[in-house]
């Protein structure tokens, strides 16, 4: 391929959408932890200085303050690096936000292994498993620019807590002009197929799409599902995949134990068991860039293709 595919940093559309929402609704506020720059919120702060509450480096206070702001009638978007938001403030998320059911939007910025060389302290591979364990907390993983914009708008307009991941490194569009690009509570089938289903999330969706193209050349028909909402799980779409294709691969930038792979497998094994392969990041990463680490952990189109071949060989 000689043509350069255009790629986007989801944080840019995230901030743009928040500013648009804040212009429409005076109840939209941002709470962050010295993360104005890393969350791309400088413009928001300049436009709405009173409505950006930066608590400093204090995640427990950040989430508690957001719960209080929600109690006071506001719609706070908590914008903080995903590892610190979900790890440091887990009990505040559990008790003050999810159990109390406050209208707090938890935005995990730069999730997965986005921070690359900064190492496992700054990686957020456990967040999805942790958030999935909480009762009825919607978990949204927008895969591209269009999905990010629509998911943020949806989150602002629904009442109740949400956790969403906002990616850091640039990704290509996977929605390809599909409208809507994001449907709440629904998995997005972006390529149909009948041999194998690849269920991917976030940054892995574009790799799943590339894998499907390679498999097509080999005569394997791969269905690609962008699981942009992990909780609640779109069980209708997953059941269809289990019934209509011979195997399921899941691909995610997080631990599969309790993660996206875990979510899909829990459902499949109890309802229509078929062979599965869970691809993710199940150990602390060695030193390396995000791109290097995705390869290191086998989260590439080539590895997805190899997994598909392997599963279908065993399935025969």
């Amino acid at each position: 391929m000689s043509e350069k595919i255009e790629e986007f940093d989801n944080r840019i559309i995230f901030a743009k959408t928040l500013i648009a929402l804040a212009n429409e609704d005076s109840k939209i506020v941002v709470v962050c932890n010295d993360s104005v720059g890393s969350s791309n919120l400088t413009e928001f702060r300049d436009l709405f200085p009173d409505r950006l509450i930066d608590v400093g480096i204090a995640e427990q206070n950040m989430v508690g303050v957001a719960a209080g702001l929600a109690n006071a009638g506001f719609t706070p978007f908590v914008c903080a690096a995903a590892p610190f938001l979900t790890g440091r403030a887990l009990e505040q998320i559990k008790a003050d936000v999810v159990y109390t059911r406050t209208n707090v939007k938890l935005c995990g910025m730069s999730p997965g292994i986005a921070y690359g060389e900064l190492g496992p302290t700054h990686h957020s591979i456990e967040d999805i498993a942790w958030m999935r364990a909480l009762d009825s907390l919607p978990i949204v993983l927008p895969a591209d620019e269009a999905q990010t914009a629509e998911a943020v708008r949806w989150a602002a307009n629904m009442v109740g807590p949400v956790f969403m991941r906002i990616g850091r490194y640039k990704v290509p569009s996977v929605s390809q002009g599909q409208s809507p690009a994001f449907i709440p509570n629904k998995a997005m089938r972006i390529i149909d197929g009948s041999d194998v289903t690849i269920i991917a999330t976030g940054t892995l969706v574009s790799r799943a799409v590339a894998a499907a193209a390679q498999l097509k050349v080999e005569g394997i028909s791969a269905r690609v599902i962008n699981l942009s909402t992990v909780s609640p799980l779109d069980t209708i779409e997953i059941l269809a995949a289990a019934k209509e294709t011979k195997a399921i691969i899941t691909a995610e930038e997080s631990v599969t134990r309790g993660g996206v792979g875990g979510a899909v497998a829990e459902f499949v094994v109890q309802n229509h068991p078929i062979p599965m392969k869970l691809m993710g990041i199940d150990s602390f990463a060695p030193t390396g860039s995000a791109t290097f680490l995705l390869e290191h952990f086998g989260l590439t189109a080539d590895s997805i293709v190899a997994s598909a071949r392997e599963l279908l060989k065993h399935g025969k």
Partner: protein
Amino acid sequence: MNTREISDLAREIRIQILHTIKGAGMGHIGGDFSVTDILATLFGSVLNVDPKNPNKSDRDRIILSKGHAAVALYSTLALRGFFPVEDLKTFAKPLSNLNGHPNRNKVPGVESNTGPLGHGFPIAVGTAIGAQLAKNGSRSFVIMGDGELQEGSNWEAAMFAGHRKLTNLIAVIDRNGFQQGSPTAKTNELDPLDKKFESFGWEVCLVDGHDYAALHKAFTDPQTKPRVVIAQTTKGKGVDFMEGKAEWHHKVPSAEQYEAALEQVGKQ
């Protein structure tokens, strides 16, 4: 309410606490009694709250961070008309709305689901900032146990409230000197608590936590900074054999102890 009426309310709260804990066979009676006069003063003569409209937007917020004193809060809310006093009998019974720790989605008047310590303070900072943004005059109160101040999250909140000069926020410390197992001074010393808060940008009010007039003044005097009311209290206040005894953190009175306690409290 005048001081006499607040005192009457406090007596009724203590009686309900005794009934409720005796009926359930569980509860944190020591901490319930130490915080009773604080709750009676706040709900009797300070808070802008309406039991008929518990979610009105400009209400004052009161967050019981020491959620284990749920029975004291439930008794106060019931006596102030937020729900029927009769419901207190269901406390801790299967499927009751009255859990061992308060639940906002089940109990009118409860602002947040507290229980794990160190949670209420940041939430109250959030409600205070929200009131300033909304410009609705709402004030925020958070009631904490003293042992709870060992949680770091409180100091994150204290630092930030001092930085923002939140003059519509009052943190009340139920300074009974005990945590679950032993005196706070023996476990992890908190003093000098006043200097700690002063250095975080707070005005400090040291009061007798069982003196209604002093509490009322501490809760209503004009502020130029966030205020901490360090209320010196007695764990188990009102029942001589419970006062200042660590074991009454969550001990349940026997039939004889219950009668004796009821008699003492009834005279107050």
